[in-house]
């Protein structure tokens, strides 16, 4: 053994560059995982996410408390007739909401009823008048109560009138029913209001995520540029991998946060009285996710470019201004469009992330519409990624001062 060793010519101790380098196959993965780890350890990020969830849950609970409360009143009456009307009204009310409760309190005469209402012993008073009934109250009467009481009073009077006329209520009412049918609604009877609220929430979520994570991408880019870390990084891995990792890491985070918020929101809603069994809901959410991801990606590389244009963190405000304005415009215009313009805009990249899920939730789209919109935003994505990457590569190593968008376009390598 030892003889062989002595025969071996002395080799250079220096490791050969090409042989020893294991080479990083996918450096972007490392960059993305750092990006995610840093953010997940960032107290501000965690706090703001937690705060969003808390506010969301509080809103849902508040809504459930205010809007979902059942009718419950004490009603002062003079005597038996009033009690009968209130009982009929309660029957009608519980048919709609089993928790509804109307209690009648017999007080003898009209002045006692008025007195009790004024003192707050009862919520309302029901007094017989010459040609019917009268509800007394301090201020306006709750419309839901007025509706059921009026119905009960009318039915009661008509039953009596019918009997006097020798017929019954049924024959008297024959042919009087009027119902409505919405031709624009589908047979599933989707709830327009719920669809609007959810669509709006989706729009806000996208707007906030894009702004927050976009800013984060930009500031992460300028952080590396400002500290010259980018020189070490770009000597080690291609700038494109750096950009890819940064953008994909942030996209994953944005998606994760969005899914968390939507999930918590849906679970929260399930515990309230709201009927969220929207037929378009599952479909809407399923489509929202790809629209969210692509809408985010479409701007992500441009955010990175905005960051690389700045030379210091302080310049970010001005270099990211066009993007911020764009997002505000997309959001404001998106939620305010009507009719045909809204339909057209739901195909426009980025805008489609706000409008197409809304339209899907409303159940008013053909199957091909989201597909086309998705393809359009995908194409737009490829375009902005190329543009963003080019700007990013050119300006990242440009160290002397902040760049304008126009100058960066004409910059040489």
């Amino acid at each position: 053994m030892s003889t062989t060793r002595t025969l071996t010519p002395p080799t250079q101790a220096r490791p050969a560059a090409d042989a020893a380098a294991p080479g990083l196959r996918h450096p972007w993965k490392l960059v993305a995982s750092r990006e995610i780890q840093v953010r997940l350890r960032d107290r501000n990020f965690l706090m703001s996410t937690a705060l969003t969830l808390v506010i969301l849950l509080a809103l849902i609970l508040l809504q459930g408390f205010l809007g979902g409360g059942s009718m419950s009143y004490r009603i002062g009456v003079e005597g038996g007739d009033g009690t009968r009307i209130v009982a009929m009204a309660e029957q009608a009310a519980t048919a709609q909401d089993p928790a509804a409760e109307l209690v009648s309190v017999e007080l003898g005469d009209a002045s006692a009823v008025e007195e009790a209402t004024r003192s707050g012993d009862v919520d309302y008073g029901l007094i017989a008048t010459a040609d019917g009934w009268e509800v007394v109250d301090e201020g306006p009467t709750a419309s839901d109560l007025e509706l059921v009481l009026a119905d009960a009073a009318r039915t009661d009077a008509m039953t009596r009138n019918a009997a006097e006329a020798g017929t019954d209520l049924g024959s008297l009412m024959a042919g009087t029913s009027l119902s409505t049918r919405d031709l624009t609604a589908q047979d599933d009877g989707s709830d327009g209001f719920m669809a609007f609220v959810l669509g709006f929430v989706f729009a806000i979520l996208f707007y906030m995520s894009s702004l927050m994570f976009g800013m984060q991408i930009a500031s992460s880019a300028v952080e590396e540029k400002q500290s010259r870390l980018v020189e070490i990084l770009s000597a080690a891995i291609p700038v494109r991998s750096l950009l890819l990792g940064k953008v994909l890491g942030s996209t994953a985070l944005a998606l994760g946060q969005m899914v968390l918020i939507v999930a918590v929101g849906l679970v929260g809603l399930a515990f309230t009285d709201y009927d969220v069994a929207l037929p378009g809901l599952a479909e809407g959410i399923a489509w929202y996710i790809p629209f969210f991801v692509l809408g985010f990606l479409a701007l992500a590389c441009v955010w990175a470019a905005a960051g690389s244009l700045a030379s210091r963190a302080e310049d970010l405000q001005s270099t990211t201004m066009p993007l911020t304005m764009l997002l505000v415009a997309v959001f404001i215009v998106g939620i305010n469009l009507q009719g045909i313009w809204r339909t057209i805009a739901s195909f426009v990249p980025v805008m489609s992330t706000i409008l197409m899920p809304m339209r899907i939730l409303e159940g008013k789209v053909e199957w091909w519409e989201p597909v086309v919109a998705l393809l359009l935003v995908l194409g737009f994505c490829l375009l902005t990624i190329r543009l963003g990457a080019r700007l990013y590569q050119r300006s990242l190593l440009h160290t002397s001062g902040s760049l304008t968008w126009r100058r960066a376009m004409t910059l040489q390598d």
Partner: protein
Amino acid sequence: MLELHNLTRRYGDVLAADDVTFEVPAGRMVGFVGGNGAGKTTTMRMVMGVLAPTSGEVHWDGTPATRAVRARFGYMPEERGLYPKQPVLGQLVYLAQLHGMQAQPARRRAVELLDRFGLADRVDDKVEELSLGNQQRAQIIAAVLGDPVALILDEPFSGLDPTAVDQMSELLREHTSQGVPVLFSSHQLDLVDRLCDSIVVLHQGRVVAEGTSEALRADAPLRYRLTTTGDTGWVRGVAGVTVIDLEGPTVLVEPQDERVAQRLLTDAVARGGVREFSRIRPTLSEIYREVAA
């Protein structure tokens, strides 16, 4: 061996680097000297591939340096910075991983180096919480961590205290003894003189002098200082001798050659007592001032 061939970088009308050619042989330490704006940083960035040269090439072991090769160069950029809000050890491991190292060995080596630079108890501190000198140490560790095949260091010694300078020098020596070529720029000429095997002087983008400090000194004009017991005004009359400076008994001369110098000494002895006759060896700073003038 690292070779720079005619590296040129033009910014508009300005030539930041003009036909820069020199080599950093394996296991040698080359000092890169020059005033502010001489083009040192531009050149080093081109060596790292961070900046594309207008023309010229960087060769590694005889062939143009590829990205894969450069990924194994250890680099310390001019302006310092690591991620300010990330813990020291974490980002050192991350940077080493980007250079293709596995996480575990990278962590071990980083801890070892941090310990050596006296930062063992600061591994989990954020970089911004370290003093500037300690940030600099962390930066150096970042440069050498990925088991580099060459080291390109832009002003690695600036801002270091004498202890850190010694630690740093030792670290560099370890690398050169393993055959790693080291190129570093510095304004601390005495340090360059002490550490480097050879020196490259850059002035206005051009290499104006290059070689070992011995060779550079040899190129410097021959000078002697003569101090006698009497006045030395007679020296002006000696053939082949140029008087640079004369002050009473002391005269600084530039003899044509060594023979003329010896004759001058004999003359001086013949005229009376000689207190001093010494060869003036220029310091690196003097050489530098001369070539960069």
